[in-house]
């Protein structure tokens, strides 16, 4: 048994994870070696001191602050106003309204696109030209609309040219909101290995933290060794923003592959 293994055993003993037989066997081994005895003593002492750590008392005003908040909540409930606990319900209503509005705007936009396509002969090639043109001259809002309608959840087929166009926008567009919309759109095709590979590459070049987060989230949904290596690289690169490292570490944890 090497020293590292014995160290693990010592920790397991102090965590109460060993059986009586295992514990006694460990004690017998420790007794035979002075160095092991010192190692055991250091762990034993550390655990004992950890157990003695006491909690720091909170300041008394904390309770009155919370009571004040609670009173407001109770008054709001009694007077029929929305307390914070029911804000979630109104949020759901807002979400519903936003969804209806988004569908409405999308429908108008698709109808306009259709009109334009018909004017140009209504071919797929023309639609791509419209998409490429929209990416060049339009405002960020218009671009986002075009990117969002470019995804059709009834038809998950997408051709390489459109993917290439989307990655071009991700690389070149100055607006982080536009790039975020591109990542969201590309996430629908994350099962494609070329999309995953290109997203992995774009992680190094993406300057905006929130776009990076969206890419990380998207890649995490199809976690594999390559993504794991990339994520570990991000965690180890201290030049990365803390919240990015946190998020990546969380994902590595979620997939049980964090190295401590």
């Amino acid at each position: 048994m090497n020293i590292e293994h014995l160290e693990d055993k010592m920790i397991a003993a102090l965590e109460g994870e060993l059986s009586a037989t295992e514990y006694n066997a460990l004690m017998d081994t420790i007794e035979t070696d002075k160095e092991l005895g010192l190692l055991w003593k250091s762990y034993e002492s550390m655990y004992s001191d950890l157990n003695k750590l006491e909690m720091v008392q909170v300041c008394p005003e904390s309770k009155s602050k919370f009571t004040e908040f609670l009173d407001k909540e109770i008054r709001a409930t009694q007077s029929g106003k929305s307390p914070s606990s029911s804000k979630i319900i109104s949020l759901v209503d807002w979400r519903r309204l936003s969804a209806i509005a988004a569908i409405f705007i999308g429908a108008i936009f698709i109808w306009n696109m259709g009109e334009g396509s018909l004017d140009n002969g209504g071919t797929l090639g023309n639609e791509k030209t419209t998409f490429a043109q929209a990416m060049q001259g339009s405002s960020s809002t218009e671009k986002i609309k075009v990117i969002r309608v470019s995804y059709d959840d009834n038809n998950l087929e997408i051709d390489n040219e459109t993917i290439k166009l989307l990655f071009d926008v991700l690389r070149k567009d100055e607006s982080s909101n536009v790039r975020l919309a591109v990542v969201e759109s590309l996430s629908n095709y994350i099962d494609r290995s070329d999309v995953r590979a290109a997203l992995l590459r774009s992680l190094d070049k993406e300057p905006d933290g929130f776009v990076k987060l969206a890419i990380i989230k998207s890649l995490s949904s199809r976690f594999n060794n390559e993504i794991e290596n990339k994520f570990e690289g991000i965690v180890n690169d201290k030049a990365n923003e803390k919240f990015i490292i946190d998020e990546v570490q969380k994902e590595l944890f979620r997939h049980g592959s964090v190295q401590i």
Partner: protein
Amino acid sequence: MLNVKSGKISEAALLFDRYQLPIFNYFLSLNRNRMLADDLTQNVFEKMIKYSSSYNDQRKFKAWLFTIARNVNNDEYRKKVPSERSEEFCEIKSEANNAHELMEKSEKSQQLMAAINLLPDIEREIIVLTKLQKLKFSEVADIIGMNENTLKVKSHRCMKKLRSILINDIRYEY
């Protein structure tokens, strides 16, 4: 908590009394800033009321509350740049009777806290939750979103690292 969920909001005061101390100390251990720890504690209990409808009674309340605390802490962390993060060290209270014992105990506690503070965030969190908060591995696994066995392995590594910091960097005497 089930009473709060069913609309008896006033019962939240009892939960605040019972869990304010562990939640405050959790934030204090992670952020080393009393004022921030106090604000974040308030935030947790406000969120507890706000999201009471989502509480699932199959889950242990303490683990659920610490999950909220963890999210609150992560949100706070994202808002700040590293230079804004306070380095105020944790002050440890002791109930030892004898003055010498008090001094020795306090010194050792401070050494331990200093060593814990030298650990990376996630490792510090594991030690804070398992050793300071004395939560079970199953509860911490639930809070962090990790498999219990994986957590045990990580926790063993954290203890090795903590010992190494104590011996090599803090010159801890045992």
